[in-house]
């Protein structure tokens, strides 16, 4: 394959694969097996039409799968509720860095039947970042435009949307488990494409990296959508970006099927948004009530 452009994650995956014990090899072959079962159509060169490559994604997923099994020790509930074909997973978003997105997509690959590639809808600045841009495309993610989301849903894909966006991801610790304002675009897309919505609650990410402040305006000067100040960052440098080994739990609610055209007034769309939001809150309450502590459960 085009070895010089697989991205840092792929290289990291190779490195880990080369020096580590049998359990990791097993995880690697598990990822590989699951990757073969995804329902996505590939061309003769092994890519889907958006540049997803299971072959390259497989290598990039190993670090993520290791975090999933051994660091965040993720458990899931209700993943069988995710219907086949086109579906929108709508989730809370927190934790300064998008480990929640990585864990949700790893869950869809390792636990869902059949395994699915959870397509991420990224910020506009991601395509401008070398390596990150390539890795994102190989793993099936892309810029979060309505056109892209519609095209994926029409292909019968599973798309993840975090309607809080950076408002959620870079909020401070005192706001944990308080859902921030939701964007409404996902509801219009679901209505227009008749796509079922599965509300997803992720417990753990909200505590992985307690934010003290968000210097958003300074961040914008540096070309980033946010500049979080946390217990570890920027004081410890890049090391300070490491999340704490919190216990993750991901809950999937009953699919919500909305009736409409997508051209409804904002107020009506807002009611649908609240419905989904309530679904996520139900999952979050359920997940938090049954865990023993932040680091165990």
């Amino acid at each position, binding site marked *: 394959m085009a070895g010089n452009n697989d991205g840092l994650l792929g290289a990291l995956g190779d490195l880990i694969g080369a020096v580590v014990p049998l359990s990791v090899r097993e995880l690697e072959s598990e990822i590989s097996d699951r990757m073969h079962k995804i329902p996505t159509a590939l061309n003769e*060169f092994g890519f889907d*039409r958006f540049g997803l490559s299971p072959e390259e994604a497989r290598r990039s997923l190993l670090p993520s799968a290791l975090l999933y099994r051994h660091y965040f020790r993720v458990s899931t509930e209700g993943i069988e509720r995710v219907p086949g074909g086109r579906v929108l997973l709508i989730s809370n978003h927190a934790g300064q860095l998008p480990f929640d997105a990585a864990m949700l997509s790893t869950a869809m690959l390792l636990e869902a039947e059949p395994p699915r590639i959870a397509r991420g809808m990224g910020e506009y600045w991601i*395509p401008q970042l070398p*390596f990150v*841009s*390539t890795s994102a495309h190989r793993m099936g993610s892309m810029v979060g435009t*309505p056109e892209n989301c519609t095209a994926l849903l029409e292909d019968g894909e599973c798309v993840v949307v975090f309607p809080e966006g950076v408002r959620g991801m870079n909020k401070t610790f005192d706001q944990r488990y308080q859902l921030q304002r939701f964007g409404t675009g996902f509801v219009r897309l679901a209505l227009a494409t008749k796509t079922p919505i599965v509300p997803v609650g992720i417990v753990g990410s909200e505590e992985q990296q307690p934010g003290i402040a968000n210097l958003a305006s300074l961040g914008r000067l540096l070309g980033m959508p946010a500049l979080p100040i946390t217990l570890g960052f920027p004081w410890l440098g890049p090391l300070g970006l490491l999340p704490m080994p919190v216990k993750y739990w991901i809950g999937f609610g009953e699919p919500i099927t909305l009736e409409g055209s997508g051209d409804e007034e904002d107020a009506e769309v807002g009611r649908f948004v609240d419905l989904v939001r309530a679904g996520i809150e139900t999952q979050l309450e359920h997940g938090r009530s049954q865990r023993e502590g932040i680091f165990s459960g």
Partner: protein
Amino acid sequence: MEKVLIAGISGGIGRLLARRLLADVEVCGVDSLPWESGPAEIPRYQVDLRKREFEDVFRKERPTAVVHLGSRRDFRGDAGRRHDLNVRGTQKLLEHCARYEVRKVVVISSGTVYGAQPENPFFMDEDHPLSGSRDYPEIRDLVEVDTLASGFLWKAPQVHTAVLRPVHVLGRFARSMMGDYLRLDRQPTLMGFDPVMQFIHEEDLVEAIVRSLELGLSGVYNVTGPGEVPLHTAIRETGGEAFALPEQLMRPAMRRLFGWKVVPWPAGALDYIKYPVTLSGRRFVEASGFRPLFGLEECFRGIRG
């Protein structure tokens, strides 16, 4: 009987199209360059599209259909002259078509007019803004040619005008920016970028033009080929060898080297190997039933002839 005038008949696509059409219709052609070995039954005129002699070809040949392949796309030479040649040449061509009662016009634009930008969605449709010249001022004339041709749709509603915007054209005879790049022995790429690209075989583009003529299509259409692959796969499959350089190095170097006329592409061309520029060909497929005959492997295999 239909008589098709091909502007730009001496180029690769022009020649292929002329031979393809010859079986069914009368063909004539103009170009600024000669086609020395061309078939004797095709009258050819070596003229400048902006000059009076070009209009005289319309009087003499009385074409019923015109295919415009006559835009210059290479960047060597004077930029102002190229702009004038392309924009004023197209304007004259369309004026003559209206005056001499041509019934069908097909103008070949390009998918590059949409521009390579980070916020591009995948599979842009024909209504997507033409932002190509935002970061790539050198192709402003090509965007303008496209706009002139699209404007002709409502200016001359009695003429069936089809504006085709094909993805990267590959083949033995066709010249295109991406084809020339892939024919290099080694391809410079931007480190960490590997955008998905679309290609179409030159024979399939010819087929798409023929369909547009036969059906008398009116409208603006993206023309897409057999599929999508990342840049590095295309480089490997066409027998090239990629060497990646950091963008911070490549961009200033390209600017310098283009200025010295060492490389044939301005620095703005780099965005086309950085961001995906992919088109939706759905509208053309629905209007014409077009399906590409040549697969990606055949597109790649053919280019080094």
